[in-house]
């Protein structure tokens, strides 16, 4: 066949019928991981006897450069046109070897990977002979598949150079800024009516001791100055359609009820008759149904709490005409984006009633509440006072809602305890101890902890400083939860904390205190709706799950959806910013070229076999992935199924129902499986050591 003709067929995705498969077979020893159990040389030798196998090698490390070079050389010099590799897990090196084929000029999909390590040598260490035989059979199956493999081309799609960032906390802001500066359009949606998230509620941040809000404000100002960023507050994602590069996202935006700012805002808030718990101060104070959370918040205007507003109209009377509209309605709009950043953040662990006195005694607060209390703009103007009295004795109890032990701690609704470390609470508590010392030089401060995890740069300094500041440390074990109870009436301090201290004599110590601070851990914000919309999953700790916790920490299993900040797990500000920036780098790499490439594993119709039964269309669970179209040829009209690859996710439901075997998922064809099943069950060539 003339070469030109071959190329044409290859381009059309067809296997040239007379191109004889020349299969290269490679067995990796994996530095003994495979070779110590499986006789790799023997496997290669035996497979070399099979039809169409042109070369069969074993090698110490197929993934190494010399290993890859061996394959490339065989392709170039020996005309290998199919490659079967037996090595470690398909998830580790499939991509590596695909690229090897590509570099050597072979279609990267003319390759099959057999997992000989995780699925043979590591699980059959006691039976090396059988493991070797199994390797031969599994590889023979790969070879059988390889005989039938066809070259495939990735699905190439145009992509919007536009990213959606969900969450306007520090991570979302940081991601948006990087994406915009990279030259991408960004839409940022924030559920609340203000930017800044949890960081705005901190008094200060470690390890720099900067005040949190000015630091945040500088970041927000940079975000606001970016022309590529469009911000929607009070907005949530209501739904999404599409796929990587081409999402159409519906956003539902709650009305603000207030247009811009005006001078008499305080007067307007004063006349509102509704009092509500102030979420910003974690319930330490109240606010009105028309309110602003804090002084320098962005956007700076007031907002109406629709849930509690009775529309009495008092505020409308006092405000300048037209500034308040109590009849404003929510509205929906859509954005077209290429990728999505989930920066949905965390919420502080909410202790159960009575957990170390929580809610039972008013003198028990949480660490986030302590931040508000010590804040100059907080409910007590930054004075370390509780209930009108200066606090003289305070105990900070660590690991509340973190490092929990099954059977000891009460489980969450899903039946699981929080068995993870929340990472930030130790240093946050120690930094608060420093601040307390500044505000109350004579106060007695107790840190009741399990391990002090001042792991980060300059974190240890807080630990040292706390010791110098006469902070008393008591160490408890998770199994012996400190007990908080009411002291008798005549006692000087209202509460007693009972703890078995393992730093001194393991004795039970009772500490009289004015205030107990529960250093609560982090839990992810509930984002069930977003998980369903974007098909991402949580891990066992309920935080959103990354592809690989070591090497791909910001990507999810869904191409085009990445994680930023505490949505993925507990992190401090610096770590959230680094993660957010890393997420931006991944998104930039993905859509910056305005196109994305997807795996070609989609349904394919063989027009010669299709009889237009329409069974496939009936069962297809995807929208607009497969349809019947009418064709006419030589005056005859007939119907044939046609696939829209971008909408097909390769679920294969259509394959099993086709009465004419006209459908297949490319790369995973039924005839390939039939050949593989046959090859495993078939007799194999005799091999040395088999008897």
């Amino acid at each position, binding site marked *: 066949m003339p070469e030109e003709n071959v190329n044409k067929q290859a381009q059309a995705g067809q296997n040239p019928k007379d191109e004889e498969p020349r299969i290269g077979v490679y067995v990796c020893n994996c*530095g003994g*991981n495979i070779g110590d159990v499986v006789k790799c040389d023997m496997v290669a030798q035996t497979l070399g006897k099979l039809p169409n196998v042109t070369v069969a090698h074993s090698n110490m*490390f197929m*993934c*190494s*450069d*010399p290993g*890859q*070079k061996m394959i490339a050389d065989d392709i170039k010099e020996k005309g290998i046109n199919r490659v079967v590799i037996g090595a470690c897990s398909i998830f*580790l*090196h499939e991509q*590596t070897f695909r*690229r090897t084929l590509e570099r050597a000029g072979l279609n990267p999909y003319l390759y099959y990977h057999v997992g000989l390590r995780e699925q043979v040598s590591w699980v059959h260490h006691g039976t090396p002979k059988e493991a070797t035989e199994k390797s031969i059979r599994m590889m023979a199956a790969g070879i059988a598949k390889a005989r039938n493999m066809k070259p495939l081309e990735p699905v190439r799609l145009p992509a919007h150079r536009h990213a959606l960032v969900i969450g306007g906390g*520090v991570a979302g802001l*940081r991601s948006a*800024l*990087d994406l915009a500066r*990279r030259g991408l359009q960004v839409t940022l949606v924030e559920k609340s009516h203000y930017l800044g998230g949890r960081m705005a509620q901190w008094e200060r941040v470690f390890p*720099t001791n900067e005040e949190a809000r000015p630091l945040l404000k500088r970041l927000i100002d940079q975000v*606001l100055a970016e*022309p590529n*960023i*469009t*911000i*929607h507050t009070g*907005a949530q994602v209501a739904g999404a359609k599409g796929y990587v590069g081409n999402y159409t996202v519906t956003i539902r935006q709650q009305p*603000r009820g207030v247009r811009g700012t005006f001078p008499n805002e305080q007067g307007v808030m004063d006349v509102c008759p509704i009092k509500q718990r102030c979420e910003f101060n974690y319930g330490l104070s109240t606010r009105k149904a028309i309110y602003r959370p804090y002084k320098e918040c962005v956007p700076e*205007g007031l907002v109406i709490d629709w849930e509690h507003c009775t529309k009495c109209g008092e505020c409308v009377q006092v405000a300048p005409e037209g500034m308040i509209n109590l009849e404003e309605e929510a509205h929906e709009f859509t954005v077209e984006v290429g990728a999505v950043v989930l920066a949905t953040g965390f919420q502080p662990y909410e202790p159960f009633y009575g957990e170390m006195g929580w809610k039972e005694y008013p003198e028990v607060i949480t660490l986030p509440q302590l931040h508000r209390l010590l804040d100059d703009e907080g409910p007590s103007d930054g004075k370390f006072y509780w209930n009108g009295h200066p606090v003289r004795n305070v105990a900070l109890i660590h690991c509340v809602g973190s490092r929990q032990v099954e059977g000891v701690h009460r489980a969450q609704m899903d039946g699981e305890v929080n*068995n*993870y*470390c929340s*990472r930030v609470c130790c240093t946050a508590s120690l930094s608060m101890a420093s601040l307390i010392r500044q505000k109350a030089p004579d106060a007695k401060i107790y840190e009741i902890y399990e*391990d002090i*995890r*001042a792991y*980060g*740069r300059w*974190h*240890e300094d807080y630990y040292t400083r706390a010791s110098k500041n006469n902070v008393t440390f008591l160490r408890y074990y998770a199994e012996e939860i400190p007990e908080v109870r009411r002291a008798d009436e005549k006692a000087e301090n209202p509460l007693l904390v009972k703890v078995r201290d393992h*730093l*001194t*004599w*393991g004795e039970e110590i009772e500490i009289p205190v004015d205030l107990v601070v529960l250093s609560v851990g982090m839990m992810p914000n509930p984002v069930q709706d977003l998980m369903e919309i974007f098909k991402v999953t949580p891990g066992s*700790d309920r*935080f959103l799950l990354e592809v690989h*916790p*070591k*090497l791909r*920490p*910001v990507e999810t299993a869904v191409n085009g959806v990445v994680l930023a900040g505490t949505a993925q797990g507990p992190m401090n*500000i*610096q*770590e959230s*910013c*680094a993660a957010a*920036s*890393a997420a931006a*780098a991944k998104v*930039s*790499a993905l859509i910056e070229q305005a196109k994305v490439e997807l795996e070609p594993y989609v349904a394919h119709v063989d027009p010669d076999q299709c009889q237009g039964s329409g069974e496939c269309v009936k069962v297809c669970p995807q929208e607009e992935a497969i349809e019947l179209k009418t064709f006419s040829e030589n005056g005859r009209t007939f119907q044939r199924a046609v696939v829209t690859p971008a909408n097909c996710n390769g679920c294969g439901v259509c394959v099993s129902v086709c009465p004419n075997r006209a459908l297949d998922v490319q790369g995973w064809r039924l005839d390939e499986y039939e050949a593989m099943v046959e090859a495993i069950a078939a007799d194999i060539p005799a091999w040395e050591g088999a008897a």
Partner: protein
Amino acid sequence: MPTEHIKVDALVVGGGIAGMQTALDLGDQGYQVALVERQSSIGGKMIDLSKVFPTLDCCSCITTPKMSATAHHDNINLLTYSEIESINRNGNGFTVQVTKKPRYVREDDCTGCRSCELVCPLEVSEDEHEFGRTSHRIVYVPFSTAVPQKAVVDIDNCIFCGKCIQACPSDAIDFTQQPEPVEIETRSIVLATGFETTPIDAKKEYGAGKLRNVISGMMMERLLAPTGPYGRVLRPSDGKMPASIAYVQCAGSRDQTLGVTYCSRVCCMYAIKQAMLLSGALPLAEITIYYMDIRTFGKGYEQFYQNAKAMGVEFLKGKVARITEDADQNPIVRVELIDEFGKTRVTERQHDLVVLSVGLLPGGNPQAKFGVPVGEDGFIQVPDYNVFPAVTSQPGIFVTGTALGPMDIVDSIMMAGAAASATASYLESSNGSGKEAQSQPERSVEYA
């Protein structure tokens, strides 16, 4: 010799995991990158590890593809065995002088077949990669998964017998090779200069490196790695399989006497990981970890720690004051223990092998070479640590990985992404001369 010129958007200094990932994240965004590594292979410290926590993935298996991807990336120009000589600001960019050290092997010709290594008559026992525990020939390929897979001659020890020249099938050996100057013109620089571990002889109370059965955590990594020297865990003095192994935590961290006050962040997890691997390799061995605080703070780390406890690894809170040895070279650990009843007592315990969980020290001297300020701890100091951790005070110079302070692999990967993003932002800005300063268009901010 004419100077080779390379023109790139970003120069990444250091080919460890942070440097490689930064180069990949920049290269994937379409920027031209040069990666300069001092050693003869990229891979950094990570390639020396056995397995990674908390997944227990084989380290070589997950690092090797990264090394390969870096080396094969269309947008990355890799220079190994190269030193940065000087850096000069040049308009908005930099001109960087680099010296490619002579391998005495022509890189283009070497196929990495190791025929030279087989015939070389001399061995030296200072293989950096094996931490002095095994030897290598004078001409050798650094290690089995090295990238690039090219031989290098240890010229100081070579006797010029010429056997390798005869054996080389591709005539790649060249004793006349000279250092080659390379000039890199770049618009930005990312420092991924990494870390060193506390030297084993740093602490005289722990035997100052003279006790044969007291080794560092990095040596244990090599003993546990499938590519390691013995393929199994044996103690150095007599090759005995240790039945009792102790870990001394904070050996080089949180220690005023060594001037290292900070926590090295990775030692708790690597000790626990090694303990778990050891209980697999030596099921009968007793493993004890002496610690001050167990700092398993990362995602999945606490669960990993609890698993180790459940597997029977003994965790004892207490500071090891001194290590000595008995007549059979068994290390004796003197420790102030706080037992389960909270009683403090000083006790001496004998083990077959002691592993010092050595800490992380800054690698190289970034201040002198790149003009970036360092903190008291010697790691690079940045002006806005919390929000812009990768941006140094020198415009156009960025930092990533452990050059910014101790961190584990996953945090290094995150920082690599952060550094790549920060660099991209800079390259696209007018300061980075990526484009003309734009007149600011009307803002399209839309509040609710």
